[in-house]
């Protein structure tokens, strides 16, 4: 089978494949798929196959190429020439057109589920059962018939849902199940319509927002779908879930397939090794163990006294809210602490919970000698106490596009430039000019609308805005998302300088683990709403953080 690279000789999988070849064509097979983005080789001669009735898991770090493969299958990306796509043994010419996937028996469920939230369950199911264009689009809908049809569909998959309920009112697990039923139904119709036996359901990170208990429901549904004869490609970070539901696991690293194994033959440790690269094992496991020891030790030593307040620096106690269950940490003055976790781990909620932009259910914050109940914090109170937040969604929460650069930059300090009834605009513009120079913003013109700047420059403006207010605590969420390399370096420099100069405590939350390794003094690792590890100093590397983050299964138990 072309494209697979093994580190331990021929795998039992490949042996079985070779035996099978010539008898039953695979439902879906990719051969020699490569994809370049400029200089970057995102996929290198990747091959994989999915058989009827098989669940194949695809795992890999962020940037390993998983989503690129999905995009090639959905027609969003055109692979380099030389690759092949075979469906039921027959070659389909690449690149696929967008939307062509459903014509060849592929159906997708993405993380965002793509359900029409305002529409009912019935209407969402209806979306796939209707002729969508031409004269068919005008034929009347017989709702009673549709209702009956929909009920049959749900029964077939063993999913009980209220047809009339609005989709956005369903609990997340039911939304996911609805999305999967809809996709599976689309596949079944394809099989009926074309007479082909194959069909493949691609599930892209479907369990991310689901609580443990609900994942079982999802798996039952997947097994039903598989029982009907579809093949499933299951993409996920959740190693425990994968080992439970998948038959075979394919590991991608740096755009190449590095391993293929039956799920029963590998354990989580081996998977982590393969995903990240074996050499990180020793480095990261020790500090994780040391941390568990120290946490236990601490609670044994000081059961009654609350943690001492550092006169400078920031302490967060038992923060909870959204996906976060319980997190406590301390950041010293001029210290940059990172927070790493997969989506759903709770890490991504921390910045907004702390800032009062999302409602926390519990938590205490101590800074500057004062103590606050986090659920009662609002952005306004936080700003007054010297807490700053650079949010991830720059366009909506960070930068005001119609306003000029200087107007964006001085938002937090304008009040102090209004004296005796005169608004000293010129002072503010001059300060902004200084900020533009210090933060290397292009074009260096204060009166240009901020919306015309590149992402990197916009982010620097947002950062400047907050740093002008000399905060005690600076929280950054995905600060270099969509930012060019040069601006990235600048941002690292500026934050480090601000921390050193003003003794600002910095909390850096991002899924770019390489960035954390570069900028942070310490990184706290989150999983399933809690802290599961901590790395510091020399241990910090993209791989070690990745490994720590993937180990959630072990630590949570």
């Amino acid at each position, binding site marked *: 089978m072309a494209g697979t690279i093994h580190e331990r000789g021929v795998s039992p999988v490949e042996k079985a494949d070779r035996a099978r070849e010539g008898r039953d064509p695979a439902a879906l097979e990719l051969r020699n798929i490569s994809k370049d983005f400029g200089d970057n080789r995102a996929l290198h001669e990747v091959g994989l196959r999915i058989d009827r009735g098989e669940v194949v898991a695809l795992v890999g770090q962020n940037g390993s190429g998983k989503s690129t493969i999905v995009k090639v299958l959905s027609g969003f990306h055109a692979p380099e020439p030389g690759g092949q796509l075979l469906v039921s043994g027959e070659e389909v010419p690449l690149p696929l057109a967008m939307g062509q996937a459903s014509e060849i028996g592929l159906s997708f469920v993405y993380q965002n589920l793509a359900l029409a939230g305002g529409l009912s369950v019935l209407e969402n199911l209806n979306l796939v059962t209707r002729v969508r264009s031409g004269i068919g689009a005008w034929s009347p809908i017989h709702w009673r018939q549709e209702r009956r049809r929909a009920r049959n569909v749900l029964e077939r998959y063993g999913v009980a849902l209220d047809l009339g309920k609005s989709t956005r009112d369903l609990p997340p697990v039911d939304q996911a199940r609805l999305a999967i039923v809809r996709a599976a139904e689309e596949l079944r119709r394809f099989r009926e319509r074309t007479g082909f036996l194959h069909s493949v359901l691609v599930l892209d990170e479907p369990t991310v927002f689901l609580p443990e208990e609900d994942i079982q429901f999802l798996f039952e549904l997947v097994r039903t779908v598989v029982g009907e004869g579809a093949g499933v490609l299951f993409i996920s970070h959740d190693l425990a879930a994968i080992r439970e539901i998948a038959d075979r696991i394919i590991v991608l690293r740096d755009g190449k397939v590095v391993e293929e194994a039956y799920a029963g033959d590998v354990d989580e440790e081996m998977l982590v090794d393969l995903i990240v690269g074996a050499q990180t094992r020793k480095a990261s496991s020790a500090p994780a163990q040391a941390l568990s020891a120290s946490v236990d030790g601490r609670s044994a030593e000081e059961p009654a006294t609350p943690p001492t307040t550092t006169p400078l620096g920031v302490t967060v106690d038992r923060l909870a809210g959204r996906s976060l269950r319980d997190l406590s940490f301390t950041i010293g003055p001029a210290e940059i602490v990172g927070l790493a976790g997969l989506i759903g781990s709770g890490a991504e909620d921390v910045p907004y919970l702390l800032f009062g932009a999302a409602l926390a259910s519990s938590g205490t914050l101590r800074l500057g000698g004062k103590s606050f109940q986090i659920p009662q914090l609002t952005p*306004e109170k936080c700003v*007054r106490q010297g807490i700053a937040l650079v949010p991830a969604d720059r366009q909506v*929460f960070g930068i005001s596009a119609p*306003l000029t650069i200087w107007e964006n930059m001085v*938002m937090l300090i304008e009040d102090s430039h209004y004296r005796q009834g005169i608004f000293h605009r010129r002072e503010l513009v001059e300060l902004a000019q200084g900020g533009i120079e210090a933060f290397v913003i292009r074009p260096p013109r204060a009166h240009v*609308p901020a*919306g015309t700047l*590149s992402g990197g420059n916009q982010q620097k403006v947002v950062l400047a805005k907050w740093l002008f207010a000399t905060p005690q605590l600076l929280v950054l969420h995905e600060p270099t998302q969509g930012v060019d390399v040069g601006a990235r370096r600048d941002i690292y420099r500026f934050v480090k300088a601000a921390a050193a100069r003003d003794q600002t405590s910095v909390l850096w939350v991002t899924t770019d683990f390489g960035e954390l390794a570069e900028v942070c003094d310490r990184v706290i690792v989150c999983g399933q709403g809690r802290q599961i590890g901590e790395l510091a100093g020399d241990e910090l590397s993209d791989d070690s953080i990745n490994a720590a983050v993937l180990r959630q299964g072990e630590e949570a138990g």
Partner: protein
Amino acid sequence: MSTSSIETSAIPGEESPEDPSGARAHKAVVRRKVGLDRFALLIAFAAVIVGFGVDEPSTFLTVGNLSNILGSQAVLFALVLAVLLPTVMGDFDLSLGASAGLSAMTAAVLNVQHNVPVLVACLAGVVVACIVGFVNALFVVWYRNDPFIVTLGTMTVVTGIIYVVSGNNSIGVVSTSLSNWIFTNNLFSIPLEFYYGLGLFLIVWYTLSFTPIGQKALVVGQSREVARLTGVKVDKMRMWAFVFAAGIAGIAGMFYAGTNGTVDPTAGSTYILPAYAAVFLGATAIRPGRINPLGAFIAVYFLATGAAGLELLGAQTYVQQIFYGAALVIAVTIPKVTRQRIRRRLIQ
């Protein structure tokens, strides 16, 4: 919904450093053209004055005409200032015309039917209008409803209340002292109400353009979530905007009562759409893309001048409507047309 985020005349690709010199020179020309956009309304205004002045010098360029134009717009202008406040914040208040009418009717009923001294009656009118403003603030901001829908509802309710309060009659004649203070007495042949309006304008202009509060209001309207995350008390500001706007509408009602002497139940209702037209038209001038008081000021008097000129030429009064509407649509389209033409040329 944020209504004050009108597209700015930003030039695409302005900050890319690598640029063949040809395109850069082109962009310099483009920049100058776009800069002139800000004064388009003023230029149009000047053109209208010159045009009508040349055509009908004896009737147009007279003190009487000037006084007529400036004085007759006072009620509308006050309402324009009222409309400015929620619009800057990104909200809508369709009920302001009705609030003005309610204020006028309240003052009239109290003064004429209950012999309440005219000043107290007017104050009562303004207070009543503020109550309407507070109701709007409550339902829009506190209960998080769409401002268009809520104020459409309150507008209808208030219009009904006006009929109830007046017994479906026109109420007159309001005490002449009010008329004296507002309409009859002149300064340089222009009715005093123009100067009151001017005073109000200066307060609003100062607050919106020369204070941090005004700057924050701008951010609330343009990028509400950014304002919120910067610690601006977004909801509080929006609520106050509704209340103050209604108060100013109440003052507009006072002007109405003073100018007309008799208040009929439909007073105020005809002003709301022209007021919005002036606000949006004003947003194309001085500070393009931003709701701004100076632009609105120019817009009101530009429209009034144009309409007066047309009347002098013999056009019927309803021509005003056509002129207002056409001016608004044309004014907001012109920047788009020039920008598209520029974009196409830059691409070539």
